């Protein structure tokens, strides 16, 4: 919300701070200034001048030579503007002066300088200017000509500062008003804060009771049927409305808030809304059938056309203003086409009401309709404001002679909002803030905020005005004290109690896994938690795959972000694909984040959130490098037993011959494999890609520091190489199992060091060469022992069809 400093000064005359200092101080007391605009910037040496004569330029079809009286002297000014006439008062930029906007509509930084010069041989001393050159436009100055010089009203004195007369000698501050400070969505609210911040007196605008001898009840009755959605409804009647432009002071103030002056009547309602924060609405009295207004909910499926010509379908959650027979307005949101004010209006019913903020917000959202009025009501207004605003508007209507105010006001106000009485402890406030203020000091901060304060012992006895509905308890009062004492003056201390810092072992494990993945060359990536359901189609998943059981977001940002992910593979493949498209080579990525697995759908309880480590790469590396890295990662987590791999992994997005479940102590910790070429194509990946997915929720219980020292062996090891002929259908894993079983407990190490398939090997077989080391803890192995083990080993191998290869 933009607020003019000049307008504030009307209520706080003692304000003298510069725009910058004012903004900084307001920010420090909690009314954050977001931006500041000096309306008078680059408007220099511009005065009002009266055109004494207009003569045609001899050497030009369109140039005119004017003699202009600027008070102290008369200047000759040559102009191309078609609208100048003798007797007009116009803005004149003097030699060395500045305007904001140039002829092409651009706003150069530093403005546009004007100097004396010659136009086709005729001297011109300065320039007369348009409203556009002064930085505004016909939207805000409807009286300005479409093309040409701005003309002041008759009788405007000459030699005056023209920008000041137009309201440009002003500074606007844009505030960020927080939702608890409804009262600050008004000029008086900010003025009250400004007065308190600068220790100046605050003068509330003068409000009188006005009205003729007639009785409103002879004209109108009001029935408030839903006091839950409308806590107060006031109405008055203005007879014989006379439309005219509003006075310039009011137009200037409206413009500072970005509101276009229209006519005295509309301007007054807008003015009161800005000044006091209470929106008002006007009905044409002739349109109100039965001289009756009812405030009640709409019928379900009721159709209603708002004054912007749009038809809406209503329901019973929406509050309507109705007359004797029909709906005439959506309460607090927008009036109806059927009762709008036109130029022909004679008598006007003026409404000031207090609607339920939450309901206005929800109704507005339902109807897709947010108006100036509804944006005020949404915040939840003070019902006591209605009467004040109504009186203020009627005072202005009389002052500006725009109609005859009928005596009396309809006021439906079933439960009057009373001032709150609050008693808070001074020592508790000090303890909360870390201060040692006296009750009197606190009182001095509270009084300017119109909080009546009495100090009684350790307690502050407070009366809270109804416009401060946010003040409910000690902490709220503490904040008022703190912000005017100054947050900057509160000391910096540290909490006295001591606790031990740390993190959950799972979080610590995540951290070391991340660091290990980095040590293995993987770069950390962040994927979104939600994605499109369509990316799952790219994974070739069968209909019954668990990945399809996704949690849907009911109000997603779009299809691309509509389901919570049940797999990290799409995210990884998208990231690899992006890198592939950008021609990055040898890309290794990892991600550590959650998958969201619902326990049932639709969701009735929170899903299982599974922390998942995903590794993926393109370029250098293969299935086995990935496998080695996974084992390195997990071993470092304390999983120092043996990993197993089962090729019957069911994930269809892997290469059918290069995929595995990763098993440890019988648990599936994850899957890994090369990505299926069809899936690569679906993700627009032009290189082979490998991915491993580790379910850390399975890893956590296994992880830990399981290290135990084993003494370094004292007796020598015996090492043997075996070249084996292995049937193609027997896996290396099975061979190794057999070796381990047959040689335990003497086995120290078994290592595959050569694989060969080809011409030199019997058809249907492959050659695997192992190095087997045996060692006893307590003696040197004897020849017999070694031979016995060797025999048992060969027997075991033979059982699975494996033979020693003839060397």
């Amino acid at each position, binding site marked *: 919300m933009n607020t003019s400093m000049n307008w504030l000064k009307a209520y706080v005359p003692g304000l003298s701070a510069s725009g910058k200092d004012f903004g900084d101080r307001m920010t420090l007391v909690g009314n*954050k200034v977001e931006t500041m605009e000096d309306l008078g910037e680059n408007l220099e040496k511009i005065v009002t001048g009266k055109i004494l004569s207009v003569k045609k330029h001899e050497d030009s079809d369109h140039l005119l030579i004017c003699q202009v009286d600027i008070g102290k002297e008369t200047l000759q000014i040559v102009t191309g503007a078609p609208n100048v006439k003798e007797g007009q008062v116009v803005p004149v930029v003097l030699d060395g002066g500045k305007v904001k906007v140039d002829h092409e509509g651009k706003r150069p930084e530093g403005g546009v300088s004007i100097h004396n010069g010659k136009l086709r041989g005729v001297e011109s001393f300065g320039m007369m200017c348009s409203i556009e050159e002064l930085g505004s436009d016909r939207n805000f100055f409807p009286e300005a000509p479409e093309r040409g010089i701005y003309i002041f009203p008759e009788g405007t004195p000459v030699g005056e500062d023209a920008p000041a007369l137009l309201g440009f000698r002003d500074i606007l501050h844009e505030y960020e008003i927080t939702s608890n400070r409804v009262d600050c969505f008004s000029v008086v609210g900010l003025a009250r804060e400004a007065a308190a911040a600068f220790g100046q007196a605050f003068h509330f605008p003068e409000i009188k009771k006005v009205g003729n001898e007639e009785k409103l009840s002879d004209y109108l009755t009001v029935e408030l049927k839903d006091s839950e959605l409308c806590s107060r409804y006031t109405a008055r009647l203005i007879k014989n409305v006379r439309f005219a432009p509003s006075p310039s002071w009011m137009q200037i103030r409206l413009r500072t808030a970005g509101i276009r002056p229209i006519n005295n009547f509309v301007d007054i309602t807008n003015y009161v809304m800005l000044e006091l924060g209470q929106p008002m609405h006007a009905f044409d009295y002739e349109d109100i059938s039965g001289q009756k207004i009812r405030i009640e909910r709409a019928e379900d499926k009721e159709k209603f056309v708002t004054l912007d010509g749009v038809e809406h379908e209503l329901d019973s959650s929406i509050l309507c203003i109705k007359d004797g027979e029909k709906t005439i307005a959506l309460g607090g949101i927008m009036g109806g086409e059927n009762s709008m004010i036109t130029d022909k209006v004679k008598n006007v019913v003026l409404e000031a009401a207090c609607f339920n903020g939450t309901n206005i917000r929800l109704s507005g959202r339902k109807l897709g309709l947010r108006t100036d009025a509804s944006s005020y009501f949404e915040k939840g207004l003070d019902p006591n404001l209605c009467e004040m605003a109504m009186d203020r508007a009627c005072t202005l209507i009389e002052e500006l002679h725009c109609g005859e105010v009928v005596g009396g006001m309809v006021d439906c106000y079933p439960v009057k909002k009373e001032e709150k009485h609050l008693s808070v402890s001074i020592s508790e406030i000090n303890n909360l803030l870390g201060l040692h203020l006296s009750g009197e000091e606190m009182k001095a901060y509270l009084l300017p905020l119109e909080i009546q304060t009495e100090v009684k012992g350790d307690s502050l006895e407070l009366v809270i005005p109804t416009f401060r509905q946010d003040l409910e308890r000690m902490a709220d009062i503490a904040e008022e004290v703190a912000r005017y004492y100054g947050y900057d003056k509160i000391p910096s201390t540290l909490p006295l109690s001591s606790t031990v810092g740390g993190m959950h072992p799972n979080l610590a494990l995540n951290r070391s896994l991340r660091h290990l993945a980095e040590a293995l060359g993987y770069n950390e990536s962040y994927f979104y938690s939600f994605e499109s359901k369509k990316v799952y189609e790219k994974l070739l998943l069968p209909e019954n795959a668990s990945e399809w059981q996704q949690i849907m977001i009911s109000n997603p940002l779009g299809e691309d972000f509509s389901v919570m992910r049940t797999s990290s593979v799409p995210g990884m493949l998208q990231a690899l694909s992006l890198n592939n498209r950008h021609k990055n080579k040898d890309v290794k990525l990892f991600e550590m984040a959650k998958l969201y697995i619902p326990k049932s759908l639709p969701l009735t309880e929170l899903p299982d959130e599974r922390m998942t480590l995903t590794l993926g790469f393109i370029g250098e590396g293969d299935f086995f490098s990935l496998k080695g890295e996974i084992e390195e990662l997990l071993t470092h987590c304390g999983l120092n037993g043996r990993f197993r791999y089962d090729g019957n992994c069911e994930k269809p997005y892997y290469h059918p011959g290069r995929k595995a479940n990763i098993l440890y102590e019988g648990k599936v910790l994850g899957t890994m494999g090369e990505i299926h070429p069809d899936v690569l194509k679906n993700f627009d990946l032009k290189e082979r890609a490998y991915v491993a997915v580790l379910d850390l929720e399975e890893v956590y219980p296994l992880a830990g520091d399981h290290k135990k020292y084993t003494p370094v062996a004292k007796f020598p090891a015996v090492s043997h190489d075996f070249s084996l002929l292995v049937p193609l259908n027997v896996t290396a894993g099975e061979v190794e199992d057999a070796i381990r079983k047959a040689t335990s407990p003497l086995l120290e190490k078994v290592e595959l060091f050569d694989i060969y398939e080809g011409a030199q090997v019997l058809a249907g077989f492959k050659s695997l060469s192992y190095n087997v080391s045996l060692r006893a803890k307590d003696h040197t192995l004897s020849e017999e022992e070694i031979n016995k083990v060797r025999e048992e080993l060969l027997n075991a191998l033979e059982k699975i069809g494996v033979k020693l290869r003839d060397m």
Partner: protein
Amino acid sequence: MNTFNLEEIGKAAEERLRSAMDMNSINEIRTHFLGKKGELAEAKKALKDLSAEERPAFGQLVNEVSQKIEKEIKERAAELERALQDARLSAETIDVTLPGKKIRYGHAHPNTLALEEVEKIFIGMGYEVVEGPEVEYDSYNFEKLNIPKGHPARDEQDTFYINSNILLRTQTSSVQARYMETHKPPLRMICPGRVFRSDAVDATHSPSFHQVEGLVIDKNIHFSDLKGTLDLFAKELFGQDTKTKLRPHHFPFTEPSAEVDVSCFKCKGKGCRFCKGEGWIEILGCGMVHPKVLESCGIDPNEYSGFAFGVGLERIALLKYEIDDMRLLYENDLRFLEQF
């Protein structure tokens, strides 16, 4: 008797050693003179033919010559070895300016770097790092934090809903609510994590981002403690000359509340393009925990008070590394990631 001219043997050995240019020749010389069938061995054999009077003197002479040759062989061998090594070293000279072998260590994401930094600071101050669910009940995300149904703050935060009861958390304060319910004061914790708000993706917005929120609850916790804590945090994070400024603000879950600016660490508060000429950069929101929040999480507000604060990780990462577009954080382009 003196067929063995020992002196000449010694001289001959000396001469041959001088011309020996490799270890093989040296070994030959050793065999020739000192070997089992070498010249000195022959001389020793002659000893037995000598008279008892002659024997000691001759024996001594043989030994002397033998030792001298032995010594000369050692010296020559050492000399040769040195020369050989020098030759090898000189042949092995490399161009040390040739590039090193690339070891491609991976890189942490800027968000994570910021997170670890924040965690380090707060663990050092006695805070426990705690996580909680990202898909959350309305009650933990809103109700218990003094944001009842219909509260305007619910609109401001543009929540993603799963259904009327379950949503994607908009703030990690939900973890604080859970923590307060299950732990007894004194409490000191931070809760980092992913949060979600319905903001379309652009240079400064993302529908999912990360927060770290902190909470301290104990007897006699003051607003001044909050100030001191955040001041310390800002100094640790952005440098010891960093200043903090608290501005009054409003959050439903704290009272009093504040927004916190830190002095711009680029211009040291003078005002620059980075801080838009302000000299200050807004980085977090904070306040004293609202009594209603304490109450709804089972802590007696008459006995305990506390403070809470929240900071966006992306905000820190963007500031710290001068990243100008938030989208880069979620694109995962290697050329970006490798810079951290």
